[in-house]
C-alpha cells in the first residue's frame, strides 16, 4: 500500500526548531524576518508497504504520530489525526495571519543517499506488525511551511539552496499554496513517483590501450590523482615483466583492468606517500612502547591493558559548501573505523579534533558543534579540541579526528593472523558514502562483540569494496573473491558501479572457518547484512571473479612493496631556520595601543560585544558520556582527562600543539611539540622517569600537489621533522608519526603553509590530583613559571602586530636542560610542592595575556598583574615562548613553592594576585594600568554554542 504522511507540531505550540533554523538563516538573509510571518516544519514520510489499510492505520498511529503534541496529515487515510478536516489547510487556518499567503518547500534525499529515518521507519513497521517487510520501501523528507505575502520564488529558492537543503544530499521543490491545498501529493501515483529510485554510480570503463604509455598517461590523468609519470611507469614495468605478463595472459587478462586500477588507487589513497618520519633514537626508546603499524601508537598502560592511539585517524579538507554535520560525522566515524581496523577491536574511549579555517568565514563554530554532536551519537567524549585560524586557509575547513582506546595486553601479545581457508565476509548496511550513525554504531559495536570469531577486519569507507578487500588480502598469503553472488543478493545493475562506490557502513572480516555460524548469527541479531564473498588461500595473489570471468589478479608481494608509492628524499644542507635579528629595542614609541591591538585581534564589533557565558569556559565538549570525564576540554584548556577504567584511579590525559609553519619551521615544530607536552603536564601527566607514560603523535596537512612540485615545501617538511625529532630527543619522548593527506589540492587551490599537528598523550597517576586551568580563589598569588623569554615571531598576534612600529621581533629559543627539570617538577618526579598549585595554564601561541583572560573568565574573577620592568610588555603578554606556565597558589602556601623553585633552580616570577572584580589589570612601570580588560566583555567570537 502506498502512503504519504506529514507530521508537525500542533498549531498552538511554539515550533522552536523552525524558529532556530530561521534565526540562523537570517544571519545571511537579513530580510527574512520581514517576509516570513509564520513557519512550521513537518516531517514527511513516503511508504510503499505490503500491508493492509487497517494495518497501516494501526502502525502509523503507533509509530509516526503523538497526539499530545502533533497533528498528522495522511490524505484521507486518518483524517482524525489533525484538525477539523485532517488536511493541511487546518494548520494553515491556525496561522496568525488569515487568510495568509502560503508556500511549502519540500526536500528529500537524492537517490542513493542513506536514509536512516526511512530505514528506521521500515524497521518500526516490522516491529509493530511482527513480521518482515523486506519488499517494503520507506523514505523521509521535510516540508517547510511558510506564510508571508512578500514571499516569492526567488527568496524561497535562496532559502532552500543555501540553508534548508544540503545540495550534495538533497533535492527540493517549491509548493505554492494551490498545490498544498490540492493534496495530489497524497495520490498513489504521485507517491510511487516520489519514492526514490535505486541508483548506482557507474565506473568509467577503460578507454585506452595499455601499450601506448603516452596516451595512457594523458587519458588516465584524472584517475591517478597525484601520481607522477615515474609512478605510472612503475606499474607498467611490473605488468610488462615477462613472468607476470605470461601469467596474466594465461589467466585470461589481455590488459590491466579498470578494477585493478581501482584497487591500486584505493591502496594508494590508504597507504599514503612514505614520507620522512621521525625515526626513533635511543633517547626516545621506552620499554612501554610496543610495536605497532605505521600511524598507530601502542603503549603499555598497566599490567592488564595497552593504550592504542591512532595518529592519522581521519584527515579531511572540506570545501566551503560541504555541510558541517556530514563532514564531522564522517570524520568521527572514520577515525573510529581506523582504530578498530588496525587494532582488531580495541574499545575506543575518546576522540580528539583539530580544526583549521579562516577566521572571517565563521565556519569553525558550526564544525565545533557538529563534532560534539557526532561524538555524542557515537557515545565517546572529546578529550582535546584545537583549532587554528589563518587567512591562507580560506575556502576550506581542515578537520582532523583521531581516536584512542584500551585493549587487553593478551590481545596484542598473541596477534592473530589470517589463515588459509578463513572465509571473507562483508558485513554492514547499504553502500553509501554518507554516514548513517545507526548503522555505524551497529557495525562498530559488532566489531568489538565478534572479536573471537574473526582474525582480521578492515572497515573501509572511501575504498569501497575493492579497497577494503585488497587491504584485507594484503595481510594474507592469498585471497580469492567471488562477486557473482553479489548481483543477485543486492540487485545491482552495474557491478562496477557497486564496487566503485565508497561506503561508510561496511566491513570486511577474515572469519575463522569454525566460527562462521556464530559470526553470521550475531551479525543478523545486530541488524546487519552479512555476505560470504570469498576465501583466503596460499596463492600469493589477490584474485577477483565475477562468476567465471576474472576481473582482477594481482601479486600480493608486489602490492605490499608498492614501488609506485616510493618517493626519494634527500637531506639538504640548507637550514631554513636562520636566526632573526632583533629589530628594535624596548622603550621606543609605539603607534598603536596594546588595547587596540588586542581588541582588534579578537574581532570586536564596536557596537555589540559578544558576551561570553561562563559555561563556555567551564562547560564541556563531551556530552552523553561524562561518567569517565575528569577534566573536560573547554575554552580555557583544550585538553582533557578521563578515567579509562572504572576500577582504577589512573587517568588518561590528552593535549595538543598546533603550528602553522609559515616561517622558521624548525623552531615552530619544536614549539608545537613543547606546547603539546606542556598541555598534558598542566593537567597532571607524569614525566621525568623512564616508566612515565607520555608520548607524542604528529601528523600534518599539506597539499600533495605543492609537495610534488615544490622543492622548498619538501625541504620545509624535512625541517619540520628535524625540529620535532630534536625536541623529542631533548625531552626523551617517543613520537608516533602519521602521514599527510593526499589529494588536498582538489579542494585547496591556494598556496598554504604546512599545518603541523602534535598530540601528546600521558598518564595521570591519580585523578584526584589533576589540575584544571581556571583561577580558583580571590587572594591567590599568580606566578609565571618558566624562563622569561617570549618572542613576537610565531605568536598568534604576529600579523596584527606588523603594523605597530617599534616592536622587537624575535623568535624565542628553547632551553632543553631547564625544560627537563621543569617538566619533571610539573610531572611529579622532582620536588614535593607541586600539589599546592591551585591552577596551571600552559602559555601557548596566543601568549600570556590570553592565558590569563581565559583562566579568569570561567570563574568570573579578576586579576591585578605587575609585569617586570626589564622585559618589553608586548613581548611578555603577546609573545610566544617555550616552557612557560601561569600558575596560582594560595597566599599561605606561596612560600613553600618559592623555596622549592629556588632550591631547584626553576625560574619563576610573581606577577600578582586574583581579585574579586571581573577585570584584568596589567601594570608596567606606571601606577596607572597599561591595560584593563573586563572579563565580562571580552570580545571573543561565539564558538559553537
Amino acid at each position, binding site marked *: 500500500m502506498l502512503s504519504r504522511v506529514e507530521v508537525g507540531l500542533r498549531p498552538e505550540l511554539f515550533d*522552536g526548531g523552525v*524558529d532556530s533554523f530561521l534565526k540562523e538563516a537570517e544571519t545571511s538573509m537579513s530580510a527574512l524576518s520581514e517576509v516570513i510571518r509564520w513557519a512550521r516544519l513537518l516531517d514527511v514520510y513516503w511508504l510503499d508497504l505490503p500491508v493492509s489499510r487497517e494495518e497501516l492505520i494501526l502502525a502509523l498511529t503507533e509509530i509516526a504520530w503523538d497526539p*499530545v503534541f502533533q497533528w498528522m496529515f495522511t490524505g484521507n487515510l486518518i483524517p482524525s489525526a489533525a484538525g477539523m478536516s485532517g488536511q493541511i489547510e487546518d494548520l494553515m487556518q491556525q496561522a496568525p495571519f488569515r487568510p495568509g499567503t502560503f508556500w511549502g518547500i519540500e526536500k528529500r534525499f537524492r537517490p542513493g543517499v542513506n536514509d536512516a529515518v526511512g530505514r528506521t521507519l521500515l524497521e518500526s513497521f516490522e516491529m509493530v506488525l511482527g513480521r518482515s517487510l523486506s519488499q517494503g520501501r520507506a523514505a523521509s523528507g521535510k516540508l517547510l511551511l511558510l506564510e508571508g505575502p512578500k514571499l516569492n520564488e526567488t527568496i524561497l529558492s535562496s532559502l532552500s539552496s543555501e540553508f534548508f537543503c544540503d545540495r550534495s544530499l538533497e533535492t527540493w521543490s517549491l509548493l505554492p499554496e494551490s498545490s498544498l491545498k490540492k493534496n495530489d501529493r497524497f495520490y498513489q501515483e504521485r507517491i510511487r513517483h516520489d519514492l526514490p529510485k535505486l541508483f548506482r554510480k557507474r565506473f568509467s570503463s577503460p578507454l585506452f590501450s595499455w601499450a601506448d604509455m603516452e596516451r595512457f598517461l594523458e587519458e588516465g590523468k584524472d584517475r591517478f590523482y597525484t601520481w607522477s609519470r615515474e609512478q605510472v611507469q612503475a606499474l607498467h614495468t611490473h605488468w610488462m615483466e615477462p613472468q607476470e605478463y605470461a601469467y596474466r595472459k594465461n589467466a585470461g587478462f589481455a590488459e590491466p583492468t579498470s578494477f585493478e586500477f581501482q584497487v591500486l588507487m584505493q591502496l594508494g589513497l590508504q597507504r599514503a606517500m612514505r614520507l620522512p618520519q621521525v625515526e626513533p633514537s635511543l633517547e626516545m626508546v621506552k620499554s612501554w612502547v610496543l610495536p605497532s603499524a605505521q600511524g598507530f601508537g601502542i603503549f603499555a598502560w598497566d599490567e592488564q591493558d595497552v593504550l592504542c592511539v591512532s595518529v592519522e585517524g581521519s584527515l579531511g579538507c572540506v570545501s566551503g559548501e560541504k555541510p558541517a554535520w556530514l563532514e564531522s560525522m564522517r570524520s568521527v566515524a572514520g577515525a573510529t573505523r581506523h582504530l578498530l581496523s588496525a587494532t582488531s577491536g580495541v574499545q575506543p574511549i575518546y576522540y580528539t579534533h583539530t580544526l583549521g579555517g579562516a577566521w572571517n568565514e565563521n565556519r569553525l563554530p558550526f564544525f565545533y558543534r557538529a563534532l560534539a*554532536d557526532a561524538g555524542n*551519537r557515537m557515545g565517546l567524549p572529546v578529550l582535546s579540541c584545537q583549532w587554528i585560524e589563518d587567512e591562507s586557509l580560506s575556502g576550506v575547513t581542515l578537520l582532523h579526528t583521531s581516536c584512542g582506546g584500551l585493549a587487553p595486553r593478551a590481545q596484542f601479545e598473541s596477534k592473530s593472523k589470517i589463515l588459509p581457508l578463513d572465509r571473507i565476509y562483508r558485513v554492514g548496511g547499504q553502500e553509501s558514502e554518507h554516514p548513517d550513525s545507526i548503522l555505524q554504531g551497529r557495525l562498530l559495536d559488532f566489531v568489538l562483540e565478534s572479536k573471537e570469531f574473526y582474525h582480521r577486519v578492515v572497515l573501509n569507507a572511501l575504498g569501497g569494496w575493492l579497497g577494503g578487500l585488497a587491504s584485507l588480502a594484503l595481510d594474507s598469503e592469498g585471497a580469492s573473491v567471488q562477486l557473482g553472488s553479489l548481483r543477485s543478493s543486492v540487485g545491482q545493475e552495474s557491478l562496477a558501479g557497486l564496487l566503485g562506490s565508497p561506503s561508510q557502513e561496511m566491513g570486511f572480516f577474515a572469519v575463522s572457518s569454525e566460527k562462521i555460524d556464530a559470526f553470521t548469527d550475531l551479525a543478523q541479531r545486530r541488524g546487519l547484512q552479512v555476505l560470504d564473498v570469498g576465501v583466503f588461500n596460499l596463492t600469493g595473489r589477490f584474485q577477483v571473479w565475477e562468476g567465471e570471468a576474472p576481473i582482477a589478479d594481482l601479486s600480493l608481494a608486489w602490492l605490499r612493496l608498492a614501488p609506485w608509492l616510493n618517493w626519494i628524499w634527500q637531506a639538504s644542507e640548507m637550514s631554513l631556520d636562520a636566526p632573526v635579528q632583533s629589530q628594535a629595542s624596548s622603550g621606543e614609541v609605539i603607534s598603536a595601543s596594546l588595547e587596540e591591538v588586542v581588541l582588534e585581534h579578537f574581532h570586536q564589533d564596536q557596537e555589540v560585544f559578544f558576551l561570553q557565558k561562563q559555561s563556555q569556559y567551564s562547560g564541556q565538549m563531551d556530552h552523553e*558520556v561524562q561518567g569517565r570525564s575528569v577534566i573536560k576540554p573547554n575554552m580555557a584548556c583544550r585538553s582533557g582527562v578521563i578515567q579509562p577504567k572504572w576500577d582504577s584511579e589512573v587517568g588518561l590525559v590528552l593535549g595538543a600543539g598546533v603550528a602553522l609553519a609559515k616561517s622558521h619551521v624548525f623552531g615552530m615544530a619544536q614549539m608545537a611539540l613543547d606546547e603539546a607536552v606542556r598541555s598534558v603536564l598542566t593537567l597532571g601527566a607524569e614525566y621525568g622517569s623512564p616508566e612515565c607514560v607520555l608520548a607524542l603523535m604528529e601528523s600534518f596537512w599539506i597539499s600533495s600537489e605543492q609537495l610534488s612540485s615544490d622543492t622548498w615545501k619538501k625541504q620545509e617538511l624535512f625541517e619540520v621533522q628535524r625540529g620535532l625529532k630534536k625536541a623529542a630527543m631533548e625531552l626523551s619522548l617517543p613520537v608516533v608519526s602519521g602521514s599527510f593527506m593526499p589529494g588536498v589540492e582538489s579542494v585547496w587551490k591556494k598556496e598554504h603553509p604546512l599545518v603541523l599537528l602534535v598530540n601528546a598523550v600521558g598518564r595521570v597517576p591519580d585523578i584526584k590530583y589533576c589540575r584544571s586551568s581556571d583561577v580558583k580563589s580571590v587572594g591567590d598569588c599568580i606566578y609565571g613559571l618558566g624562563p622569561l623569554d617570549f618572542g613576537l615571531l610565531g605568536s598568534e598576534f604576529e600579523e596584527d602586530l606588523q603594523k605597530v612600529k617599534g616592536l622587537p621581533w624575535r623568535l624565542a629559543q628553547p632551553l632543553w636542560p631547564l625544560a627537563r627539570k621543569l617538566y619533571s617538577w610539573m610531572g611529579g618526579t622532582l620536588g614535593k610542592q607541586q600539589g599546592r598549585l591551585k591552577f596551571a595554564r600552559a602559555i601557548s601561541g596566543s601568549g600570556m595575556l590570553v592565558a590569563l583572560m581565559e583562566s579568569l573568565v570561567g570563574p568570573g574573577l579578576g586579576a591585578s598583574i605587575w609585569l617586570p620592568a626589564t622585559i618589553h610588555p608586548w613581548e611578555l603578554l603577546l609573545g610566544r615562548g617555550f616552557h612557560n606556565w601561569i600558575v596560582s597558589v594560595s597566599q599561605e602556601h606561596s612560600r613553600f613553592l618559592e623555596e622549592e623553585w629556588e632550591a631547584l633552580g626553576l625560574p619563576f616570577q610573581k606577577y600578582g594576585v586574583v581579585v574579586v572584580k571581573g577585570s584584568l589589570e596589567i601594570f608596567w612601570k606606571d601606577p596607572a594600568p597599561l591595560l584593563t580588560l573586563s572579563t565580562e566583555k571580552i570580545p571573543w567570537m561565539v564558538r559553537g554554542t
Partner: protein
Amino acid sequence: MVNALVVGGEGLHNAQAAAQALRMAKFETSVSHLNDLVGYSLDELCKKYGVLVFPGGFSYGDCLGAGKVLALKIRYALRWNLSLFASRGGLVLGIGNGFQALVRMHLLGADVSITHNLQGYFLNAWMKVVPSGGKCLWLKGLGTMELPICHQQGRLMIASSRRAESLRKMEEAGMTCLKYESNPNGSEEALAGLCDPSGRIFGMMPHPELFVRWTSHPEWTTQMTRASSPGQGLVIFENAYREAVQAL
C-alpha cells in the same frame, strides 16, 4: 544480593556507566543487548532481576522522535509489561533516552509526551533538580541535587485539551516527582522526571549515572578535598538498592 539488568545496544551508549553506578550501589549487574532480550519473558525477568534500567544514549539515532523506536521495541518485540514487573516488586529506571521511551509508552502519564527543547537546540549543562511529592522510591529522602543534562528532546508536555485535569491527577498521585530549580528547556511545570503511581517506575532526563564520582563535576577542582567523595547521582541508585533489598 539483588540483580540489576541494564539494557544496552542500538545506541544506548550509557549502559556501561549505568552499570557502574549500580555496581557502586552494590547491585550484581549485567548488561544485555536489546536484541538478545527478545524472547526473554516477563516471568524470567521477574525471577532473575530486581531492577531494570533503560539508560541514556542515542537509540536508533533519535529517528522518529527520541525514545520512540526504543518504546516500540520494548512494547512489541520484548513485550514486557513493566507495570506488572513493578507490581511484582521490581524497580524500573529510565534515564535520558530511556526516560523518553518510558514516556512514549505512556507509563508515566497517559496525556504526557516529550519533544524538542523550547530553544530548538541541544542542551548540555549542570542543573539543580528538586525531588517533590515523596512518592518515588528512587528519590526517597533526597534533597536538591546537581546533575548533568544532555539532550535535545527533553521538554515534557501535557495534552493541552486536558492539561489542568491531567496535571492535577498526576500531582495527586505523586507522579510529578522531580523538577528543575530553573527550567532549562520549557518542560511543563519545570518537570525533570516522572514516576508511575506506585513510585517504582521512575524516569528522569538528568543523568545521575554520570555523576557518581565527585571528579565528574566540571568544577570539582575548586573543592579538591572532596575528590574522593561520591557524586550526588549515586544516592539515587543506593536508594534503589535499599528498596530492592526490602522487597526481597
